[in-house]
Structure formats: C-alpha cells, structure tokens
C-alpha cells in the first residue's frame, strides 16, 4: 500500500444497545465454532467480540453499561512477545495477526491478553451436515489445539485492497472496508478505517472529546478507540469524567 496504514476502530458506547448483532455477524463471517451449552458453562465459548455488561448502582438507581470488547489490535500487544513461534505477530498495517497453522497452542498469549480477546480450541468442533456449506471460504476453520481471535476481518481488508489494486491500483476508499460486526451493528456503534489517514472517518471520530482507550494505563496502545457513554445522571466522581 502506498498510503501509511493503521487499521483501527471507533466504538461509540453511547450508541451501543447491547443487541448482539455484531456477535452473530462475527460468528457468521469468521467460521466460529458453535458455542455449545457446555462450552459456555465451562468458560470455553468463542466470542471474538462480546458485549460486556457492567452494573452501576443499586436498585432502583441502577444502570447497565454495555461495552463491546474485541481484540484491540494493540500497537504494543502483550500477546505478541510471549508467543514462542511467531504465531501471533504485528503486520505493517497495524493488525495483530494470528497465524493459525503456526500456533502450537501454548496459550501463553491468552494469559497475556489483558482484554481476554483470545480463544483456544479445546476440541475439534465439526459442524453437522449440511452446515459446513455456510462456512466462509476466506477464513480458516480452526482445528483443536489452536488459539484464535478477532482479525478485524482481515479477509475483507485483503479483498478490498486486492480489488483496489486490480482497479488501477487506486487507494482503498474510506469506509470501503467494513468488518462484519460494524456492518451489522444497527446503531452504527462500530466504525472501522485507517487511523493513519487523518481525513478518515475513524480518525475524525477518534478525536472526539469522549474518546478513551480500554485499560490505556497498561500502555498497550490499542487500535480500538472507545467513545464514552453519555449519562447525564451519572454519579460523577472526580476520577470518572
């Protein structure tokens, strides 16, 4: 790519309703295994994006706060240095990439991801026929013993860049790439784009005064920028602004 690229995302918490459309979209796009009841009970379910719900206050003055959490594609990703085989690495476009067929399944990266964004294939999880028909051919189906996680729908990024290259080597347009979750999200909570381009929608949104990054104090430099929830009735304490 000619243009400097740092793929990033803005998640506007004031829009999110916790509806889970993004979760289902990610299941469908990325060939996630079926999260059986056992997997959920055993804390082994795969949700590359999940909607965390925090409680604040007590009945009747209680608030639920929704927070979509996915891989933050950290510029300083703690998951990367611990991998002994380079199965997770950083690419030149700012993506934290997971190379499934290189992963030996140490799960060290899972330990070290402060966002709990990584998932391990505890079993082989075949789909009953004819369900494999809906599998996305652009995305590997992971076998047992491998760690996986949100890729920012890298296959869509690849497709768009390839198309752009085929169309006379033009630049990928702003908002041309939509990860499945962003595409589905009814409220437009999720916006994706190139943070390195100051004119992109994400870059502009990222400068919104409500912006913050999750667990920023860890110095991971996430590529996902959150915009704060607006709550006129929030019990505002000095630390929480």
């Amino acid at each position, binding site marked *: 790519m000619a243009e400097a690229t740092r793929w990033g995302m803005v998640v506007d918490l004031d829009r999110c309703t916790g509806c889970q459309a993004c979760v289902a979209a990610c299941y469908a796009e990325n060939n996630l295994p079926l999260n059986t009841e056992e997997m959920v009970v055993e804390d*082994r379910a795969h949700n590359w994006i999940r909607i965390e719900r925090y409680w604040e206050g007590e009945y009747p003055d209680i608030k639920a706060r929704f927070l979509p959490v996915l891989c933050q594609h950290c510029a300083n990703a*703690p998951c990367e240095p*611990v991998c002994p085989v380079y199965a997770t690495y950083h690419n030149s476009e700012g993506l934290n990439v997971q190379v499934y067929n290189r992963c030996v399944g*140490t799960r060290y990266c899972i330990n070290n991801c*402060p966002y709990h964004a990584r998932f391990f*294939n505890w079993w082989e999880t075949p789909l009953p026929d004819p369900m494999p028909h809906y599998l996305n051919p652009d995305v590997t189906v992971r076998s*047992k013993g491998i760690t996986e996680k949100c890729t920012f729908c890298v296959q869509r990024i690849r497709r768009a860049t390839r198309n752009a290259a085929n169309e006379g080597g033009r630049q990928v347009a702003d908002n041309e790439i939509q990860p499945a979750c962003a595409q589905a999200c009814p409220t437009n909570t999720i916006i994706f784009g190139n943070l390195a381009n100051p004119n992109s929608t994400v870059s502009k949104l990222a400068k919104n005064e409500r912006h913050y990054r999750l667990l920023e104090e860890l110095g991971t430099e996430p590529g996902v920028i959150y915009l704060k929830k607006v709550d006129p009735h929030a019990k505002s304490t000095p630390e929480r602004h």
Partner: protein
Amino acid sequence: MQDRKVLTETQINSELLWFVFNKPTRFWVALTISGLLFLSGVTAFAIMVIFGLGVTGLTTIVPWAFMITNFVFWVGISHAGVMISAILRLTQAEWRRPVTRAAEVLTVFALATAAIFPLIHMGRTWRAYWVFPVDFARGIWPSVRSPLIWDPSAIFTYLTGSALFVYVALIPDLAIARDRTTGFSHKFYSALSLGWRGTPAQWRMQVLAGILLSGLILPVFVSVHSIVSWDFGMSLVPNWHATIFAPYFVIGAVHSGVSGVVTVMAGLRIFMKLENYITQDHFDALGRLLTVVATAWLYFFLLEIVYGFLTLETAETAVRELQILHYPYNIMFALIFINSYLIPVPLWLFKRVRRNIWLMFVTTIMVNVGMWLERFIIIVPGLLYRAPLTFVWGDYTPSVIEVTLVVASFGLVSFGFLLFSKVFPIIPIADQKEGQAIQEDIKIGRITVPAVIRE
C-alpha cells in the same frame, strides 16, 4: 559430627553395591507401582492428544493450571541436586558425601519430568519442535523474545549439566562395579567407566571436573528457575507480573528441593537399609540448612503477598483477596504457610526433631505439599481474576486427566530413581571412602574433638 562410624573399604563396597547386585522383592513391588502410575499418565496424555485439551479442566480464563503448576514444582525439586552437591562441594562441607548422588539423580529425573509438562500442555504437542529452529527451508524461526523459548534452553542446559555432573562423579564407582561383574553387566560397566584405573592423573581430572562443573552449574541453577519465573513475571497477569519472582522462585525451589532430598534420603535409608551411611547427622545438617532456607523463603513469600496489597490496585488486591479469603484458595493459602513454615521450622529448631528420621520424612513431605500449592496459588488465582475486566472473572476445577498427570509425574520420578539405584550405587562409594580417609580426631585437654583434614 558426633556419630561418625568407622567402616572398612570392603564393607563400604559390599554394602553400597548390595542393592545393585541383588534383587529384593520390595524393589520390584516399588518399581511396578511407580511404573503403573507412570503408565496412567501416558494414557491420560493419549486421551488429551486424541480428544483435545477439552478433557482438562482448563478454560479460556484459566488456560494454565495443573500441568504448569506441576512443571514449576518439579523444576523446583530439581534444584536440590546442585544446591547440595555444588555448593557443599565448593564450600567443602564434609557431611555432603553420602547425600550428593541421590540429590543429583533426583535433579535429573525431576527435571526430565518437569520438561515433559510444558510439552504435553501444548495444544499441539506434535508441533512442539517448532520451538526449536528447524524450519530452515522456509526461514521460519522461533521467537527469542518469548520466555517460552528461554525455558527449553535453560532446562536443557541444566539437564545436560546435571546429567554430566552425575556421570563424572559416577565414573570411579562404575569401575568398582565393572570389577565385580561378568558378562553383559561387565561390558556395560566397562563401557561406562571409560577405562578408569584410579591413577593420580585420573583422580586429579575427576576432582577438577567436579569443581569446574560445580562452578559452571551454579549460574545455570539460578537461571533456570529465574527463567521459569519469568514465564510469569514477563506477563501482564496481575499477581504474575511481579519483580520478585525470580529470587522468590529460586528460594522456593531450594526450599522444596532440599526438602525433597531429605524425603528421599529418609526413604532411601529406610528402603535400602543405609543406616551406616545416611546418618542422623545428615538430617541434622539438612534440617539446619532448611531452617535458614525456609526463613528466607518466608521473607519473599510475605513480600510477595504484601506487595499485592501495597499497590492498592483492584487487579492485584482482588487476587490477594481471592487467595487469602475465598474458598478453596484460603485453605490452600493457610496450608502453604502452615505446611511449609509454621509447623516444620519451629520443629526443626529442636535437635531431637532434626535427628528423628521419621519426623524429618513427614515434615519435608509437608513442606512439598505446601510448595506444590504455593505454585498453584501463584498461577491460578492470578488468571481467575486476571484483569480489571471483572466481567470475565472465572473459576477453575481440575479434571481427572490433570490429576492423573500430576500423580503420574511422581510415578515417573520414582520409577527413574528406582531404576537408577538398581543399576548404579546411589551412594558415591569413592567419595565415601575419601571421607573416611580424611576424618581425624584431635585432643584438647581431656576431650576429643572430631576434626577433618584440610588439604
């Protein structure tokens, strides 16, 4: 050393080689039991490979638990060998002589067992060779920035070193065995004893090699557990990400390792009837050593716990709270403290306890129960309450498979140890004789004081 026995060289030879040349039933029983335990582990591993790691109790929240705990535990035990041999050899502690080989052999088998665990805990053990630089064709290398690459390097260095250590010290004894055997055994011992004749030149070489190896292996010994600790320290997991881990792990390893040696010594003394060699003096000396080590360990243990609170950060304090207040971790926490310090150390202050083989046997086993739990409580609670994201805090219960693997590891170590002691003398014969030679008495007025000759 109050109760030094005077033994003739012939007596030493025959007593220490008795086990090698005879086949007592108790040996075969013990070997079979430990072999079966080991086989149960092989079965458990096969199940893991065939069905996937889902058969364990591990979860996305706790991806490391029993197997890694057991890994750290055995690496810890393995520290006793060099601790006893190298340090005592360098400081010329006389009482070391009968203790060294058992300690070193324990090191080798404990370490070999430990090395198995990171491998079988992998999701794709069959790809384990990728952590070594093998993929020349595609130019794909392991990542030297990962502590998981430092681990195998350190462990294999240590394993090679300690195996060499055992072997070098073993050569004169192999020659003794060679001279007393015929047929295949003779050929076997001949080959291994590398033409040892006991010439002054050979002895000089042997002593020099021993001292050199001792000096070289000490840094390795410190590095191994430091590196193991960095598997945790280099992460961002609350409670794991602690500066203290390297020395804390090393001192903990020495604590559990020396305790392990005492347990094994007591077991040997009873099992092989070695009262003439492994004497109460040894337990006395090791007991005193343990008191010091345990106290140092306690200091680090307390520092580590206190520092979780000192930060006043939720992620850290939550883990301490879990460790100290919540079932079942509170029980384990109490057991660690009680088993590894509160009961044994005050007892060891009494000479009578230190000289009581059964009490030493029991207290050192207690220490290691505590130390196993200590590793567990370092590893698991930190993961359970990993990050400030309280939304994803979880639970962990080990599965039968994991418990089996842990039990099997004890089977494997005993199996190896037993097999070794069947083939080689477990007390260094030559060293024992040297000790006999340099012991002296001196008279001061009316009392006689035991003394040793300083070269």
